[in-house]
């Protein structure tokens, strides 16, 4: 008997800063749109476990896209003529996320990003507050220096092995080996110089230390950081969260890649956050549906496919 994941993938054309990018994305579930942002140099596969989780898919349309140059999203057609190395900038990253959400006609999606995808949440809160309904910033802080370095893209060094090994220790030694090494593999598959170029955003172009106090607090922001994250330590996240009005901060016993390195632990950590987001969703507020257990949810959601597992967040 064949076994399939419920994930389906497509390509959408996204125009950003004068160029159009054939962009790969995967999705599953239905409900509140939740767009997931991968870490530097990798792709949306980091969210495969969450996308296969029926408890999440029952209330969220989970979407993970590959940034241009990453995964199955190709670079711009004239990339080989570039006179500078690839560098992800804050302005491009923010505009691309918004353009992607508009390309899919998403109405006030939730954004969940980790590492650089977590840091960009601060920019989204500052500049695009009205576009989103909540931000989940995993392993995020307002300044994460030290990672934009030459050895990560050097012709005498195997980029895949060096990049993947340099991030391996960001994971908790207690995360399952198979998932830690799967995460290593994602990193080893990145294009030449792409991890380093993303880290231009992560370590150079995203110093938000003097800006985060301007975040209004109207958009809920949830910070979650693992104790083994040495690039964005729990203290760095806590200091950032203290400056962001209305934010919540959770420190947990994990590492820098919670969605892929230990999906079981991550589900424990993220479930209360997702429950709050469902409770705050204007379309569901006061309806009690999906929050009282499978039977109540099924009774109040007649449009949903019967027999489907229902959220118990």
């Amino acid at each position, binding site marked *: 008997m064949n076994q399939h994941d419920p994930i389906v993938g497509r390509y959408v054309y996204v125009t950003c800063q004068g160029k159009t990018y054939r962009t790969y994305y995967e999705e599953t579930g239905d409900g509140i749109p939740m767009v997931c942002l991968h870490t530097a140099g990798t792709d949306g596969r980091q969210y495969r476990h969450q996308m296969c989780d029926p408890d999440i898919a029952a209330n969220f349309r989970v979407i993970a896209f590959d940034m241009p140059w990453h995964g199955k999203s190709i670079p711009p057609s004239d990339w080989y003529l570039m006179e500078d190395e690839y560098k992800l900038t804050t302005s491009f990253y923010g505009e691309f996320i918004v353009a992607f959400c508009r390309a899919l006609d998403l109405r006030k999606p939730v954004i969940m990003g980790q590492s650089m995808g977590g840091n960009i949440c601060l920019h989204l809160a500052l500049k695009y507050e009205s576009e989103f309904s909540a931000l989940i910033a995993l392993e995020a802080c307002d300044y994460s220096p030290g990672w934009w370095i030459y050895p990560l893209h050097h012709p005498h060094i195997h980029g895949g*092995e*060096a990049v993947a090994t340099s991030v391996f220790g960001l994971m908790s030694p207690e995360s399952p080996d198979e998932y830690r090494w799967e995460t290593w593999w994602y990193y080893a598959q990145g294009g030449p110089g792409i991890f380093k170029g993303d880290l231009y955003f992560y370590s150079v172009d995203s110093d938000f230390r003097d800006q985060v106090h301007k975040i209004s607090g109207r958009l809920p922001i949830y910070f979650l950081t693992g104790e083994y994250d040495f690039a964005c330590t729990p203290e760095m996240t806590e200091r950032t969260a203290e400056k962001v009005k209305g934010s919540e901060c959770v420190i947990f016993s994990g590492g820098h890649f919670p969605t892929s390195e230990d999906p079981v632990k991550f589900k424990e950590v993220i479930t209360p956050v997702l429950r709050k987001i469902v409770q705050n969703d204007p379309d569901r507020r006061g309806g009690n549906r999906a929050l009282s257990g499978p039977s109540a949810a099924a009774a109040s959601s007649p449009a949903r496919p019967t027999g489907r597992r229902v959220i118990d967040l």
Partner: protein
Amino acid sequence: MSRYGSRKSFDLEWIERWARCVNEDRILPVIGRFFNNRFVLGVDETEFLIEVRGGKIARISEGLTPNDMGFDFALRAPSSAWAKFAMQIPPPMFNDIWAMAHPLHKQLIIDGNTLPFWQNMRALTRMLSLMREV
């Protein structure tokens, strides 16, 4: 014993036990096939010269002499940091050489010619992780 394991003392005998663990490993000869370098493992003020051939440790020695003609790169940290690194479950910020070397933490100093360090990092990382088997 804490949840992270017991503290270890580092002398040449301990280094030898670690080197024998390295040489019994069946993965290192594959991922370290081209790892042919000499590096210094610095523990407090003591320098151990580690000579690697094909991913195995061919020689260890305590202290450097003029006849060594130098070394390729060095990893230096206090014994307190190596002791945490070598625990079965190392605590946060000590579980990895990059965690210890990161400018935010400054527990470990990497010096010398870092090109062979980067080139062989995957094998080197496994080699060092076998300290947890000693």
